[in-house]
Structure formats: structure tokens, C-alpha cells
């Protein structure tokens, strides 16, 4: 597999620029999305819940 061959040609225990950029992008995307969503959710006041359907006669 090409990826295996690429890995084998690089010095041991180094990430490499391409892999670092790809990994950083992936991590920033998912972590950023999670933190943004939680921040936005928690900054919106949690309104009083509506009564369950059918509970009001």
C-alpha cells in the first residue's frame, strides 16, 4: 500500500508536515465544531419546558 511505503521512508517517530497538517485540520474541525456547538447551546437560556402533551385538560 502506498501509505505504508511512505511511512517506511520517513525517519522513526516523526509526524511529518503533511500528516501534521492533515491531523491538525481534522482535530481542529471536530474539536472546534464540538466546542462551538456546546458554547452556543449553553449560552442560550434553557427555557421553561412546555407541559407534556395531553397534561393540560
Amino acid at each position, binding site marked *: 500500500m502506498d501509505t505504508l511505503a511512505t511511512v517506511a521512508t520517513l525517519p522513526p517517530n516523526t509526524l511529518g508536515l503533511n500528516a501534521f497538517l*492533515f491531523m491538525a485540520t481534522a482535530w481542529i474541525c471536530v474539536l472546534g465544531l464540538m466546542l462551538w456547538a456546546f458554547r*452556543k447551546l449553553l449560552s442560550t437560556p434553557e427555557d421553561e419546558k412546555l407541559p*407534556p402533551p395531553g397534561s393540560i385538560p
Partner: protein
Amino acid sequence: MADTASPPREQWGSRIGLILAMAGNAVGLGNFLRFPRQAVDNGGGTFMIPYFIAFLLVGIPLMWIEWGVGRYGGVRGQGSTPGMFDALWKNPVAKYLGVLGLFMPVIVLIYYCYIESWTLAWTFFSLTGQTQGLDQTGMSSFFQSYVDLENGSIHGFWVPFGFFFATIAVNFWVVSKGLTAGIEKLAKIGMPILFFFAVVLVIRVLTLDPVTTTHLGVTTTQGPMDGLRFMYTPDWSALASPKVWLAATGQIFFTLSVGMGSLQAYASYLTKKDDLVLSGIATAATNETAEVVLGGSLAIPAVVTFFGVAGAVAVAKGGSFDLGFISMPLVFNSLPGGPLVAGAAGVMWFGLLFFAGITSSVSMATPALAFVEENFGWKRKRTAWTLAAIALLLGILHIVYNTRGFLDEWDYWAGTFGLVILALVETIIFVWIFGPDNAWKELHEGASMRIPAFYKPIITYVTPAFLLIMMIWWTVQDAIPTLMMTGVPAENVPVKWASRGVMVAILLFQLWMIRTAWARKAASGRDA
């Protein structure tokens, strides 16, 4: 009519509890076992590109669709897909199509609890040091003796039963407590523990020193960064391979727990004022963080460090369980610090797998519980412990016939192929039959932000097209050979037929329950 006739339903206690429970449902064994295996098996970095594209085109849209379907049914007193589909599509067939959302979670719940019980067992074995000092052969024998009842060389006959019974008891004790006191509380405790264990393990793995190993006669030195480099070095040419695309889309499916029926059941406890758009994104992103950032930084870098890239690929070919239950304990035994560190790492690894498992398995019990409670008037505790007894009895078949392919049949038909079918059916019902404009409006009810407009054609055309292609591909590639039992040893064929027979019996029983429930509604004058 149905809106006012339905009895009051429970609601989530808090928004954070809801998100943690939803994320707990999605974050499962697959995040830490299946994902690294799939990534390694499909070329590491090559896999990650279609994986992210599938996340955006299939994962997030399906997450929104399932939340939308669930809430729409929930506000009409329907906590499971038969009632939800019936509410969305006034056609007598709709409720019977909804059986998929009862069948799959029950089937998967039973064998999932069995696998979850392994993680509980290995947490105990790690705590008591039973896996310490074992080499590759010893670790493999230790695992085989547990999963194969006929091989009693290490574990007593009763050991797998004991851990399975304990797992079932814990699961159904949680669900019997109800939504807020049981499931939500478990998520609030379990998810932070899971993330804490995962972060500690990731830090330890990524700070490992390089190790020199010999694999297939070749001596190499490698460290955790080599594992990450393998994961994140893209091979753009492999993007032309349909196999990689389907593997990536399949992983997105499993990891987000879509197409199961459990997300819809959880979403049925939402109100019109809850924000589906943002909550769906938060849940999906939390799951992806657990999978990509934590799951991707654990097993692969650890196994690459101690076995090399070629060795890691060989381990991945052996399957997710070899990776989790044989290779990872071997890695822990090789950690600097001796037995104490090995034991602590083992407890954290299998502990996190157990919490990942239980927060998912309790969600799988929810659709069936909701269906029986709402349609037959049973109380929560009675329903929960009845389902526990059924799961216990059927789970025994998995323990006894595990090595004969009993579990594999359930995993394929309900836990793999069935997911795509339910996802396709619900997408068609919600987006096409209910209508794209109605679906769009329903998703935005109570939302503090709007879904980007380009997602409307994606949800309407691209997501169903993806699902259809996946279903056709899987039918040709896997379903037909699996149905014909191609390559199955002759002695396992009767067991596999028996396994299918039990599944069909459960399916027919659930269809009968749906018919009975609607007949009761009609008789009592409630809108069916």
C-alpha cells in the same frame, strides 16, 4: 387527535443531560475498536478523507432526520418508530415499516450486552492482574478460552455467564429507573469518566518512547508518531476506490448510531422548544471528537509503537476484538512502570470501553420499552425487567454458540445491513413522503440557528442516494454471500439457520405486537 389522547411523557431533565445521553448513545465500542481497525485496514490517511465527506453528507443529515422523526412522533405520544412513521405517513403500511426500529435495537442490544460483558470481565482481569506477564500466545489463549465455552483451559465455564448476567442486570437496572433518574444520570457520570480515561491513556500513549521490533524478519524502530503519521498521511489516488468510500460511510453509520431506532426514541422525549439543529451538531461533534481525536490516538499509535506499521496492519486484519482484547493488553504489559502501570492502563482501557458500551446499550432498550409502555400500558419497571429476562435467555445462545457463528448472523442482518434499510426508509418517509418543506420546518422548530440552505438538497437527494448506493453495494458484495452462507463450515450451518430462525421469530412477534397495539387503539377509539 392523537396529540391530546396520548398520556403525559417523560422529558429530559436538562439540556446537558440530553446531549451527554445522545452522545453516550453514539459513542460506543465502535469508536475505540472498530474505527482504528477500519482506518488501518483501509490505508490510514486514505480512509480519513471519505470519512469526513461521509460525515458531512450522510452523518449530520441523518442525525437531524432521526432527531426530527423522533420529536415529531414524541410530541404525538409515540416513542418508537411504528408510531412515528404512522404519524408522519397516514398509510397502514407505515407502522409495519416501523418494526425495523424495534427489531434492530432489541437484536443488537442482546449481543452488544454480551460483548459489553467482555469489557467488564477484562476490567476485572486487569484489576486482579490476570493478564499480566502473558505473551502474544498466552494473551490469545486467555481470550479464546473466554469466548469459546468448549475451551475451558483458563476460564471456568461459569465465568462468561457471570459477567453477562451482571452486565444485563446493570443495564436494565439503569433503564428501569427511567429517563432522568436512570439514563440521563448514567450519561452524566459515565461520559466524563469515559473522556477522562481516554485522555489519560492518549497522553500516555503519545509520550511513549520509540521501540525497536522485528516483524517478518525486518527490524524497525518506531514510536507513537509513526502511528499518527500512518493515520494522517493521505493517499489521494485511493480516493478512486469504492471500497474505501463504502468502508468510511459504513463507519460513519455505526459510529453515530443512526439507522438503529434508538436516537429517534431518545429524541421523542424532546419538546417543540428544543433546538434539534444545534443539539444534533453537538452530539455528532462530540462523537467525532471521541472517535477521531481520542479513538484514533489510542490503539493505532500504541500498536504501531510495539508492533510496527506492518504489525498493526496484521493486527487489524485479525479484527477489532484482537486489537482490543489481545494487542492492547500486550501493549499495557510492555509499558514502563511494571505491573501497577499495566493494571491501571488495563482498567482505564476496558473501563472506558465498558462505559462507552453501556451508554449505548441502554439506548437500545429504549424503543422497545417505550413501545410496550405506550401501547400496552405497562409500567417502566415491569417492562424493563421483562425485556431483561428475554435478553438474558437469548443472550445465553450467544455465549454457547459464539464460536459457531450465532452472533455473526445477528450482527450482519440487524447490526449492519438492517441499519441502512431503516435509514433509507426513514429518510424516504420523513423527507419525501412527509415532504422536504415540512421536514425542513420541523427541523427548525425551536432552533436558534438555521441549517445552511445547501443542506436541503443534500438531505433530499444526496443522503438518500448515498444510502441507496450503499445498500445495493452491500447487497451484492456481502448480503448475497452471507445469505447463501458462502464459505461457512458445514458444522456451523445448522447454528446459523437457528440464529436466523430466532431473529425471524422476534420480528414476527414484534409485527404481531404492532398489529395488536393498533387494534387496541382502534377499539378504544384512539387515533391510530
